[in-house]
């Protein structure tokens, strides 16, 4: 399990250009964000221009990984060891982050212009930059201190972003999120404290070597697990999520639901794979909760009247798919084949969901922006007027439903296969139920949109490209299904 996270010594030292690429990937979003605050862009093309180097850095890191396999960096500052590594998984997640981040950034100018956001809009850029930088750092960092810093940075910036709309419900939801996020990270810190106290080090690679199962590891895992579960909105600690998204700006929601909560999940899995290499019950508990999450999230989304709540609740359910895979990733006595399948399926699902959810939020935002209605009923007749937004929504929801040929399907196929090999029938049932529930709420929404009997409204025209950006994201999620070979290839490579 540990080698999959790239926690071993690398064969090659990174080249000079790779250093620069790393720097750009980590720092540029932040700088650009600050720049954006100083000179808020009015159109998409300067944003596109500015984000080119970021994307280029991602591609360079990809090619660097391609050439030399695992890369790692280590610095010692005042007795502290900070370390980063670049393996297939982190490249994949980094690229995902950059793509979605750039898409959200491109989407933002048009959105801000159309939705009359007020003076706080300026703050969005730096916060977005911080979130993206912190996310990139999380995918790369391999010591607990850096992870903690990045996590906190990301959390605070995310809270800030989500509250920018400034409405009372948004503030209240944001306040709840803030407090819970902070408490979550303190719980996490408590776990770190135990690790630091017992083994006296924070670098994951070293820890992976020294940690043996024992009470300390277990307590630390429990604390870290609970804290990060809270931040990752895992059922039943998910309840803060929907109100937050209900009132947030669209690009912010896209980023948050697509990436931010995934970062906590990523850390959770990474740390547990170090702390709990072969435990039976803890992953099971998570998986059972995942089962409930699928059902609960699905039901919530199914019965809601608000479009954004629907999208947000679907996140809860989708996280359930990931949770259900935990026993396969962490449990004992899993044969290599199902474990590999589950591992690949897990990340494919995560990445696919990130893209699809971002696209879905954007599509939903477009619909809301155009119709001025937040409810599903307000969508009546949109199929005629806003076909593209609906199409984007539809393509994204194919991924969420896990219907072929989307990435959701391929991921589900792999997960199912792994579950069947390991005979986890309840997990199979959960996955299949999830499909049906997802279809239920997605098509409930479409049902409203296809209603031709509704009265006509005046729709606000959308800025050019807003739909296209969402479409691109949705198509990426979609295409990853058949082209799953390429992202998964990344994760094959780099075994020691």
């Amino acid at each position: 399990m540990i080698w999959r996270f790239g926690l071993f010594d690398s064969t090659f030292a990174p080249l000079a250009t790779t250093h620069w690429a790393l720097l750009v990937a980590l720092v540029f979003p932040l700088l650009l964000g600050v720049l954006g605050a100083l000179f808020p862009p009015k159109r998409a093309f300067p944003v596109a221009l500015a984000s080119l180097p970021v994307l280029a850095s991602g591609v360079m890191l990809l090619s660097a990984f391609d050439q030399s396999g695992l890369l790692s960096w280590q610095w010692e500052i005042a007795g502290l060891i900070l370390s980063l590594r670049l393996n297939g998984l982190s490249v994949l997640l980094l690229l995902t982050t950059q793509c979605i981040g750039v898409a959200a950034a491109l989407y933002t100018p048009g959105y801000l212009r159309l939705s009359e956001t007020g003076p706080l809009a300026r703050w969005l850029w730096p916060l977005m930059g911080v979130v993206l930088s912190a996310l990139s750092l999380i995918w790369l960092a391999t010591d607990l201190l850096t992870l903690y810093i990045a996590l906190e940075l990301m959390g605070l910036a995310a809270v800030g972003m989500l509250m920018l709309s400034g409405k009372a419900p948004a503030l209240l939801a944001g306040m709840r999120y803030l407090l819970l996020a902070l408490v979550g990270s303190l719980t996490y810190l408590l776990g770190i404290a135990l690790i630091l106290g017992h083994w006296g080090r924070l670098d994951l690679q070293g820890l992976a070597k020294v940690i043996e199962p024992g009470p300390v590891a277990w307590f630390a895992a429990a604390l870290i697990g609970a804290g990060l579960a809270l931040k990752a909105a895992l059922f039943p600690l998910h309840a803060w999520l929907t109100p937050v998204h209900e009132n947030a700006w669209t690009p912010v929601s896209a980023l948050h639901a697509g990436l931010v909560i995934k970062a906590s999940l990523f850390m959770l899995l990474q740390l547990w794979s170090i702390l709990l290499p072969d435990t039976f019950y803890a992953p099971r508990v998570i998986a059972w909760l995942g089962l409930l999450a699928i059902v609960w999230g699905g039901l919530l989304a199914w019965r809601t009247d608000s479009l954004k709540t629907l999208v947000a609740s679907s996140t809860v359910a989708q996280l359930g798919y990931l949770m259900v895979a935990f026993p396969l990733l962490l449990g004992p006595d899993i044969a290599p084949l199902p474990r590999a399948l589950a591992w690949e399926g897990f990340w494919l699902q995560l990445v696919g969901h990130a893209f699809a959810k971002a696209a879905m939020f954007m599509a939903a935002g477009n619909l809301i922006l155009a119709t001025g209605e937040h409810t599903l009923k307000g969508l009546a007749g949109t199929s005629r007027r806003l076909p593209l937004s609906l199409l984007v929504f539809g393509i994204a929801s194919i991924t969420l439903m896990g219907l072929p040929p989307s990435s959701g399907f391929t991921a589900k196929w792999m997960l199912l296969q792994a579950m069947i090999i390991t005979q986890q029938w309840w997990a199979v049932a959960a996955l299949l139920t999830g499909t049906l529930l997802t279809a239920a709420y997605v098509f409930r929404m479409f049902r409203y949109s296809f209603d031709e009997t509704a009265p006509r409204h005046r729709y606000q025209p959308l800025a050019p490209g807003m739909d296209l950006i969402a479409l691109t994201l949705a198509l990426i999620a979609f295409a990853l299904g058949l082209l799953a070979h390429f992202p998964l290839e990344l994760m094959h490579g780099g075994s020691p």
Partner: protein
Amino acid sequence: MIASFDAIEVLLALCLTGSAFVCLFDRHLIRACCFFVVFAVSMVLAWWQLGAPWLAAAELLLGVMLTSPCFFYALGHLSPGASAPLKRDQFSEPWSRVAMRVVLALVWFVMVGAAIRFVIADMVYSPAEHPLLLAGVLIAATALAAFALHRHLFRRLLAFNLLGSGVFILLSGVAGSSAAAQALISVGLLVAWLGSMLGALLIRQLMHLEGVEALGRDGEPKESTT
């Protein structure tokens, strides 16, 4: 020598615990705030005592000088003329919730305590040798329970801060004053301050938008509290 140190530590621990408890459970918000200042000052001393002057400085700066004013600001005492200042927490919790939280606090206390027992194996035999550590565990558990119990946003913010301090004490207790621990704690302090500041701003803004009445609710304004 050791005994005297112990005495000071015990005193500090008691001071910390006492002020923390008042801070957490006093419905009079201004008084709770004042006790937070006391708590923060004790924390400065405790860091000094634990041999981490850098942390003491940081605590002085961040905890005493920056966070405390945030609270007063949140209560509406630093910007006169704004909407009515907060005075008391008016919410009464159902007994089941209270009981549940008490149980949780106890269990949590036991759990963290047990965890620390495994980290520092000799603590079982001489719990009194680590009074600050013990206080940290106690404060952390209580603050978390209080956080879960309270519905008033301000009190939750306060509880979060105390929880943070408890965790920091605990961290330094188990990890000593290594660079890594200090770095973690410094980051934590910074985050706590940033969080408190953000929280205070939010509380003010909410009060401005929705009025005092809405503030305590930890739910959507329209929902009934369960």
